[in-house]
């Protein structure tokens, strides 16, 4: 006998049916319903990691309030906590280690009614590999990249990005969480400073199982975008946890 009716054999939460209805994800999303908590979450994600005092100061709230909300976010599985001594103080008198928060490795996704696009993506990726249809995928990705570039130009008032910082801002809309090069370093000789690095891989779990395929697709997606804007290039630059692509200005510029 199969269970195809939600909520028959099992109760409302912590069950197979509950999971299908995203109980855990709803809990996590619920923790973000509070606007202060949402701002804290974004602050921690943008910073990479943050302590209670930095976060409180940045948001203009008390340290106690920041601590309360940060711990709620950690409790919901959205942030993870590490205890660390700050500013190099050690030994007796250094005080208790401070809590440092960063985004957790858990992914939260919520589709109601239940949807499973990730399973579909895996099956499609496996089929592309088996058929050796990578070229078709790359071509499609490049076209999509160009479409995104046009869309971003239309959305912004400034037209196509010219500077690397503008590229970073435009890619932020696609979920890459770019880190723009520090001011003054732009146009350097291809060093770290002359590149936009992308801190988030939007295809993370697929990339873990199908690395060349997914990273290849992502590279072509970004190439399509930055080449349409002109003056930029994208290259493979794998980085643990981040996106495998870096973007820089064309050398001949």
């Amino acid at each position, binding site marked *: 006998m199969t269970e195809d009716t939600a909520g028959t054999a099992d109760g409302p939460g912590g069950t197979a049916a509950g999971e299908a209805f995203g109980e855990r994800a709803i809990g996590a999303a619920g923790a973000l319903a509070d606007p202060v908590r949402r701002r804290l979450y974004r602050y921690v994600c943008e910073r990479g990691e943050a302590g209670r005092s930095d976060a409180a100061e940045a948001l203009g709230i008390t340290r106690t309030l920041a601590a309360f909300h940060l711990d709620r976010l950690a409790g919901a599985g959205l942030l993870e906590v590490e205890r660390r001594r700050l500013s190099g103080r050690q030994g007796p008198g250094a005080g208790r280690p401070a809590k440092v928060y960063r985004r957790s490795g858990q992914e939260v996704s919520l589709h109601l009614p239940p949807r499973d696009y990730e399973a579909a993506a895996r099956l499609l990726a496996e089929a592309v590999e088996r058929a*050796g249809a990578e070229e078709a995928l790359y071509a499609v990705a490049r076209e999509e990249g160009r479409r995104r570039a046009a869309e971003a130009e239309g959305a912004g008032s400034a037209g196509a990005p010219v500077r690397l910082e503008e590229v970073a801002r435009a890619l932020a809309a696609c979920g890459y969480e770019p880190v723009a090069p520090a001011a003054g370093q732009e146009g350097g000789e291809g060093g770290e400073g002359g590149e936009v690095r992308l801190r988030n891989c939007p295809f993370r779990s697929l990339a873990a199982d199908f*690395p*060349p395929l997914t*990273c290849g697709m992502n590279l072509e997606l970004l190439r399509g975008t930055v080449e349409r804007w002109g003056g930029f290039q994208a*290259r493979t630059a*794998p980085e643990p946890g981040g996106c495998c692509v870096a973007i820089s200005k064309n050398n001949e510029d």
Partner: protein
Amino acid sequence: MSDHHLAQMNIGALRAPLDDPSMADFVTALDPVNALADAAPGFVWRLTDEGANDATATRPFGPDVIVNMSVWEDVESLRAFTYRSADHLDLLRRRRDWFVPLGRPGLVLWWVPAGRLPTPEEGGERLELLRANGPGPDAFTFRDPYPAPGAHTGRERVTEPG
């Protein structure tokens, strides 16, 4: 340190002979990428032809099928080299430029006692095992890795670090 090492073999069906101009990018990349492997953390050994720096002349699986075979300390060191070095990832990404799809698994991983070097014949048997039964303790893949004998009981899923 484990008393087992990870053996890896993959085969590729060439689109054209290695001296064909269409294969130039692949051939040019061989030496630098092999040097990268030799220097990578966890690298133990790789198959080479006598008097050569690679194994492209070894063709036990057919005249157009080349073999890549190596030994590593563990799955994670091989995974790091395979997927987290830009030069090697670029080769994998472009593999269809140079290799015909096999339509079945072309890469197999298995454990060997540390110090014993695998042979292409053995690799061929492991590949057949993988193709016949799917991933298991005697023949597996990056996607479905199995622990070294005696390391743990049951199946071990190796996940990407956060």
